[in-house]
């Protein structure tokens, strides 16, 4: 089961992709993923129902979020209304350790993304803030990475004992599926995704 764990639609301020077009692209181009997670910036999209598209295109479409902390950007999986009420998803300066604590308390998972990127990645902030408590998973393959960013992320994960996921970070249709995460068992709901991530049985993959 291969899921792109990091995508953006037109719901994000810099996203330009409609979810239907993602589905059409995956099927038309035979992109080797079974589904994707919409991780819109600084919000959780409670309104949209993509079950019809998922059924029409035989794809898994899940929802998460990408929030912003003092260590850079962080993906959150397993968002629920009670979790959403515990911190301000729209803030650009959330304390990472608190985000992780809230996620743990609400059966969600927080994973720093593109951690090798200057300014918005975790590794750039380790010297100033130290190693944060509670991180288990980081994104080691990001479809938008430039230069050595993925290598920096992988080296940091290796050094600190983190497990890696992959996601395309697509903002336009044709970038979906460049990186993804492979799970040994089917993942069809947000709860199953959280359980699969907590099991720590997965591997990051890249097609770039």
């Amino acid at each position, binding site marked *: 089961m291969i899921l792109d764990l990091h995508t953006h639609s037109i719901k994000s301020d810099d996203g330009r992709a409609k979810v239907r077009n993602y589905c059409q692209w995956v099927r038309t181009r035979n992109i080797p993923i079974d589904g994707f997670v919409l991780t819109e910036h600084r919000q959780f999209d409670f309104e949209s129902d993509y079950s019809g598209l998922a059924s029409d295109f035989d794809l898994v479409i899940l929802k998460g979020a990408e929030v912003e902390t003092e260590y850079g950007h962080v993906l959150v999986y397993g968002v629920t209304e009670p979790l959403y009420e515990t911190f301000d998803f729209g803030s650009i300066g959330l304390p990472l350790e608190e985000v992780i604590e809230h996620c743990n308390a609400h059966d969600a998972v927080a994973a720093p993304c593109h951690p090798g990127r200057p300014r918005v990645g975790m590794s750039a902030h380790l010297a100033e803030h130290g190693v944060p408590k509670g991180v288990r998973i980081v994104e080691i393959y990001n479809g938008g990475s430039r230069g050595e960013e993925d290598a920096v992320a992988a080296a940091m994960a290796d050094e600190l004992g983190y497990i890696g996921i992959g996601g395309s970070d697509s903002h336009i249709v*044709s*970038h979906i599926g460049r990186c993804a995460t492979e799970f040994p068992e089917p993942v069809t709901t947000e709860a199953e995704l959280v359980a699969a991530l907590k099991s720590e049985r997965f591997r990051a993959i890249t097609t770039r």
Partner: protein
Amino acid sequence: MAESIPTVNAIADVEFGGELPAFTPDTSIDATRRFGQHVGWNTPRFTDHDGARKEGLPGAIVPGVMSQGFLGAMIHRWAPTAEIVTIDTVFRAPVLVDQPHKITGVVTDIDEDELTVEIDLTVTNEAGETRVFGTATAKLPS
């Protein structure tokens, strides 16, 4: 002999997932200097590598609106009769002058009622890094 480029002239010619002919923009310092002269931008960041480095940049950069011009030119090479309704770009990293770049485009939506197509556009450098991405909406004859 002039290069022959496949073109489309009507919306019926367009397929979802169809690729526009790839475009290699002229990112030379001469080109950005000419552009600077025409639009009145003679700032070193676009026209002089040493001057740009003094501003903290890795070298001279291609102005954003010049990159958008390349995107428009690419669409019109593919569809000469198209009316470009919008070009919407996200600049992720500078397009560096005197470094080879490639622009690719693919059709990602077709609205036959409105006679419009949506095109994904990506500017990559030689390392394959995305420097600019965006979408364009173009109107085509029926």
